[in-house]
């Protein structure tokens, strides 16, 4: 419990420091401002030491010099006050609650115009204060994703500690990853590798076919673009248990980005790459070459798909031989395929043939 208090106090202090910076700017007669790294594709660089993509040197400044900037800073001041109090009281709230809560603030200029604005502001505060959102006790709205497999862990809950075996103690739905996976302690496991699966349908197929038990595999459901908690626990599984992490998605540009955010970190949260990204994660498929090799049922690439692929060719995170080749091949064949397209070859094809062959090829099994 004292740990929590310490971390609360530390997070709170950082927020107060931030407010103090604004205060000093006022006192010096300077125009209050807040400098942030520019959060665009062109401003992420590969950190050779940590093997993740982080923000580069370019910054943008929110300054009270303009009406827009002043409003942003006013909102920041209100949010800082709110977060500081929340930490003081050891409570938590969701991002959406913050948005609605702003409606009650006494100054209309401080109220958020939409949830995007409040979400973004929390991220800004994360960056400038160097405190993670989870440590501000801010949660996302949706419940976390699930995992299933031979893993035993201990979770700190509001009702005390719970020890859970993620195969034996859970139903078919699996174990729900909490919002702050750092409250979890891994106790024991029998896992050979972690398999992150994009779609619910494929995850259910693997579980039904007993893939997790047959191959000592921990199946993590990504649920589309993975939440921070999902990425964080994946990273911990890799770092703390030394497990290989494999990513299995659809064969289209959007799914490559899902892999990208697991492996390299997302552009939006590049400040947390070190904490969230698993650079050693490997891409299983569906690969454009699979579409050709297995003659999978496909959909044609739409204009937005082509644009996304072309944009990925320029994305520093995809600048390697494997991805360049695959993306160019896909642009060439002009097709995309879903994970479940493998069912065209039978419901067991994925667990009996595709995955074993591919994983063997990649040296995992």
């Amino acid at each position, binding site marked *: 419990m004292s740990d929590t208090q310490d971390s609360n106090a530390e997070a709170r202090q950082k*927020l*107060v420091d931030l*407010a*103090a910076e*604004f*205060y000093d*700017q*006022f*006192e010096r*007669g*300077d*125009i*209050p401002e807040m400098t942030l790294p520019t959060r665009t594709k062109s401003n992420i660089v590969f950190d050779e030491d940590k093997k993740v993509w982080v923000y580069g040197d370019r910054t943008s400044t929110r300054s*009270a*010099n*303009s*009406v827009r900037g*002043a*409003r942003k*800073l*006013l909102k920041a*001041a*209100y949010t*800082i*006050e709110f977060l*500081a109090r929340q930490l003081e009281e050891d409570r938590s709230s969701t991002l959406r609650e913050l948005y609605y809560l702003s409606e009650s603030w006494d*100054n209309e*200029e*401080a109220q958020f115009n939409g949830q995007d604005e409040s979400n973004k502001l929390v991220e800004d505060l994360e960056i400038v204060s160097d405190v993670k959102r989870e440590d501000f006790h801010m949660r996302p709205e949706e419940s976390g994703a699930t995992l299933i497999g031979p893993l035993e862990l201990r979770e700190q809950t509001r009702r005390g500690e719970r020890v859970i075996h993620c195969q034996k103690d859970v139903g078919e739905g699996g174990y729900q990853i909490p919002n702050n996976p750092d409250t979890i302690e891994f106790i024991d496991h029998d896992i050979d590798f972690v398999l992150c699966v994009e779609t619910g349908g494929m995850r259910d197929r693997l579980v039904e076919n007993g893939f997790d038990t047959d191959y000592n595999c921990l199946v993590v459901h990504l649920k589309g673009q993975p939440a921070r908690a999902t990425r964080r626990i994946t990273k911990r599984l890799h770092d703390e248990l030394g497990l290989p992490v494999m990513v299995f998605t659809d064969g289209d540009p959007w799914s490559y980005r899902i892999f990208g955010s697991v492996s390299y970190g997302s552009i939006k949260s590049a400040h947390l790459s070190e904490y969230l990204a698993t650079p050693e994660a490997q891409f299983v498929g569906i690969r454009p070459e699979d579409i050709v090799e297995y003659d999978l049922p496909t959909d044609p690439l739409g204009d937005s798909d082509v644009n996304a692929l072309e944009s990925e060719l320029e994305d520093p995170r995809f600048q390697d031989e494997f991805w360049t080749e695959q993306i160019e091949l896909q642009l060439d064949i002009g097709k995309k395929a879903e994970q479940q397209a493998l069912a065209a070859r039978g419901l067991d094809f994925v667990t009996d043939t595709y995955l074993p062959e591919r994983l063997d090829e990649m040296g995992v099994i």
Partner: protein
Amino acid sequence: MTSFQSTLGEDEGMAAELAENQRAISIAEFFEKNKQMLGFNSGARALVTAVKEAVDNALDATEEAGHLPDIYVEIEEAGDYYKLVVEDNGPGITKEQIPKIFGKLLYGSRFHAREQSRGQQGIGISAAVLYSQLTSGKPAKVTSRTQGSETAQYFELVIDTDTNEPEIRDESETSWDRPHGTRIELEMEGNMRARQQLHDYVKHTAVVNPHARLELKEPQEHFKFERATDELPEETEEIKPHPHGVELGNVLKMLSATNSQTVSGFLQTEFTRVGKKTAEKVIDAFRDRHFGREMAWTPPASHEDGDVARAVSTAVSNKGADATTAFADAVADRVQELDRVAHQHVGRFVDEEAERVEEEYGKTFGGTVRENAVEAAWRAITGFDPDEPDQSASEHLIADAYALADEATSKRKDDETVRAFAERLAEKFVPDPADADAWRGRFTRDEVREFVDRSADMTEEREDATFGDTARENVTTAFWRVMRTVPDDAPLVSDLVGDRDAVSRLVHGMRETDIIAPPTSCLSPISAEKVEAGLRKEYDAEFYASSSRDADVHAGDPFIAEAGIAYGGDIEAEGQADLLRFANRVPLVYKRGGCAITQTIKGIGWRNYNLDQPGGSGIPNGPVVIMVHVASTNVPFTSESKDAVASVEAIEDEIELAVREAARELKSYLKKQQSMRKRQKKQNVLADILPVMSKKVADVTGRPDPDIGDALARIMNNVLVEREVSEGDGEQTVTVVVENHSDRSESPDVTDIVDREPRDVSDGANVVEMDGEWFVKWTPDVPAGEEARLTYTVETDATLDLSVSEIEGPKLTVSD
């Protein structure tokens, strides 16, 4: 208007009957029946028009005499009538002139003058007199005192409408308190329904005559318009007429009056902008119309039949073989040198070569010999043989005519048609020995056109071809171009006087010739500064702009367009802009819609100048006054009542340019206002946000509220003026800090007003004492991003009052 003409062939008895009823009507009688033409068509309007005519005259008279106008107008109710009194401080009018000026229509000094003035026709004031006598039956009462005379003259006048002559009802010598000037008193039917127009007229007169003092006393109210300047408008010079602006009748009159004998001399002395060269050009144009031109043919090639040398030599006898050959060859050579040769050339060559040969060979080439030589040479050139009766045109003439016609007509005409046409046309030019002009190939342009028409008609009939108007005109032009202006002397002035047709040709010649624009010394524009001064005087606005164009010309009369705009302040913001129209410094009050000025303003896209203009055309909306002044020796009005400027393209163009010039200034002002408003808005928002933010951060950090003044000033790019005071031994050192947070250098006027005498004043401040208060004033130059510290010392119990000017409000933060 009634037609007094009876046409030919009408029954003579009828004509005689009509003649009995026909008689000359007097001008006075005519205007009595056509009051509307002069602006006296309603009681309301009559009063305004009468005031306008009297005041216009008064202004003209005072200015001409070099006095600053001081004009008094009074309107009084007198039973069923209104009594109008207008007084001026002009030079006064002599006893002899008074009856004519006020009692005779169309009597005036200005009608013939080419000089800008308010009145032009000499109708206005006498028409007012006429109107007053017709409606009230009372005579006009005129008092006038000339400068330096002891007494004033008093007249009571009416106009005899049959004869248009003044009728004096009473006449006496009287005394008057004005040292010089004129006073007229009229009683007339009328009403004050047009008060607004009357006020507009007087107010607008004050706007364009900032040098005049005007007073208007009405039954209900009394207005005074004081002078804004003691400077009289520049005196105008009368100019001679410009050749482009005169009518036939004028020229006839001028010809009978001139002392010049030659037309060239007449043109040079009686017109402006005509020198020797221009006169010669006008006379050439006159010659072409008067005498026609001579057809010029290409000289015959030596192998052709028309051998000029042989023809000339055959025509000369008894001069010896050598002289004859030398003469004939020389003439032939001269002819061959030309591209085209006309009869006049042949005559000249024969004369010149005859003289040369006479000298060389000692033989006399008399008149008959020369005539014979000319005739023979001309025959050879035209290929005409007088021995063959009804001779057709020679091949040479046809070839020439064909070349000209072919080039002038469209390529689609087939060759046969053009050739047939050329044959017929060449026929018309065959020299006719019976007609001196036709022999020499001398024709007017109209005659050439007639030849072309006849030949074309025949060609259409015989060849079944079409020969349209354009083709005919082109051929005519092609011929006219190669024809030569004749060298004949223009008639003398004395010959022209009786020859109306010839003078008409001269007038046409004047119009056709390019002549530079008339000088503008005859104009008296108000000038851009005074336009603005006038607006400033009568309108309390926040912004003024004005423009004055260079002179331009329409129909021989120079004119200048000027414009002014006043915006904001006390000007009515609701509804349309006020439009003030002026012609020769006279406000135009009526017929707004029919005026070229109004039309021009409506045609401008005012949205481009940041004004509201519903539908994108028409008079703009908003707190705007737009004034336009047109000055000219002859402003074209739509009618005699001079209410509206007629639509003349050259004038409309200049009005538009003048208005746009002023409007551009307005636009940049409005834009600046807009950015100031934005700045003000930003300031307001930030002034709301930043204190709240500073309070929040103070709360979170648990510190007292921070001072945000400096940060605010910096954010606003403002100039922050703060006073710091450090007290010591019974006195205080006052420091005024001027921090310039803007991105450019600023020089504000900083004034601290103290009620004790300040000492040790820094930075060369200007200290002025007034009623026990000292005004300490600095004007520091503070570069962008820097500050100035201005100090002085004063006793501790002094009260201080800081003010800053010469800097826009939204850019300034003063903390006292």
